[in-house]
């Protein structure tokens, strides 16, 4: 293995592992792409680097600049790592109800945490970051939900890696957050083979939507609209915390220690495998299990863990 010049060169080229022994359909293969192998520990390292380097190319990042970004954890951690190596400061607007490990990792990389109300979930963090960015025009707001450098990171790296390692892919299943992974990988795979089916998995909105006063407070990521996500996706399905945790646990049977959103993606893949005759389903594992140990997801009583998961953003 060659010597890498920087930890940034560790981003991407993540492994794809066959976990078909968990598939309910012997003719449906399931492969998982382990994004926890990135240096910051999640798929979001890819967009962190892409967002920051795109801003550098556009000349909107002065040396020593301060960045602000809403994140429930992983993008913040990835951006904090990249910012540290490149000499920028980062302020992360973080919902109060994320796991303790996400906060600890932001501290490791020296990011400043600005807390947003947990009851408002990611929506609340986005709104607060937008307000703060308006109040502080000297801060640079790269806005992962509205910046095409997000899906482009996946179009340029995640998608090509999947196709290189598994050109037989028939279905791609991933979580829907900013929609960047689905848009970028989906567009790349469909350009290679228009028959590839793109499935989005989303967590239940739960109590988070109770904070909305009217429907027009609703939110669709601008990148989803700009990239015509509605026509790119073939299916969008909700996976609740119980199934997410059950499948996160099942992953350990094949030696995969992954975060809870990987269990959600796998639950989506299982549903997909049950509905198709044959095929090769590729799922994204956004991160490893380390950041969720405090939730007791693998070891505590299932009912208790599910109740706890309802109050914590794990996706």
């Amino acid at each position, binding site marked *: 293995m060659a010597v890498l010049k920087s930890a940034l060169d560790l981003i991407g080229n993540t492994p794809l592992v066959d976990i078909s022994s968990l598939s309910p359909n012997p003719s449906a293969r399931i492969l998982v792409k382990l994004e926890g192998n990135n240096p910051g520990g999640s798929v979001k390292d890819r967009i962190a680097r892409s967002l920051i380097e795109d801003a550098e190319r556009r000349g909107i990042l002065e040396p020593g600049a301060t960045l602000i970004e809403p994140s429930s954890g992983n993008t913040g951690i990835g951006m904090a790592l990249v910012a540290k190596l490149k000499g920028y400061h980062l302020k992360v607007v973080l919902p109060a109800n994320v796991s303790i490990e996400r906060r600890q990792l932001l501290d490791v990389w020296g990011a400043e945490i600005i807390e947003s109300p947990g009851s408002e*979930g990611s929506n609340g963090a986005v709104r607060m970051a937008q307000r703060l960015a308006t109040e502080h025009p000297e801060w640079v707001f790269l806005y992962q*939900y509205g910046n095409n450098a997000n899906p482009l990171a996946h179009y340029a790296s995640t998608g090509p890696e999947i196709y290189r390692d598994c050109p037989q892919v028939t279905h791609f299943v991933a979580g829907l*957050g900013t*929609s960047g992974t689905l848009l970028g990988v989906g567009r790349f795979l469909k350009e290679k083979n228009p028959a590839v089916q793109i499935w989005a998995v989303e967590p239940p909105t739960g109590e988070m939507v109770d904070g909305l006063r009217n429907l027009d407070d609703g939110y669709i*990521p601008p990148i989803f609209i700009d990239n015509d996500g509605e026509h790119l996706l073939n299916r969008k399905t909700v996976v609740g915390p119980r199934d997410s945790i059950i499948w996160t646990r099942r992953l350990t049977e094949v030696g995969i220690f992954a975060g809870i959103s990987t269990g959600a993606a796998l639950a989506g893949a299982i549903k997909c495998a049950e509905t198709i005759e044959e095929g090769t389903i590729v799922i994204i594992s956004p991160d490893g299990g380390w950041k969720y140990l405090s939730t007791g997801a693998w070891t505590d009583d299932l009912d208790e863990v599910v109740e706890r998961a309802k109050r914590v953003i794990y996706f």
Partner: protein
Amino acid sequence: MPVEVRLPTLLRPAANGSVSVIVDGETIGEVLKALVSEYPGLSGQVLTEDGTLHRFVNVYLNDDDVRYLDRLETKVGSGDVISILPAVAGGSN
């Protein structure tokens, strides 16, 4: 066919505070029209004036977003649960 429709908190005042209601219909479109005719306060909130889904509303047939099934033409069957939810940002970021 009678099916259960679950309403989000912010639409409940227009439906006498109901968390879920039973309405008739063979497709999602028929169900939503029946819902709005029973609770006229919901008109414009779920379906727009030209009869399409409000952009900030997601309608689920059991666990699946009907925009990626057959939209308003999606068939419903006995025992199905339809959920109406406002569009919000997901979490994985």
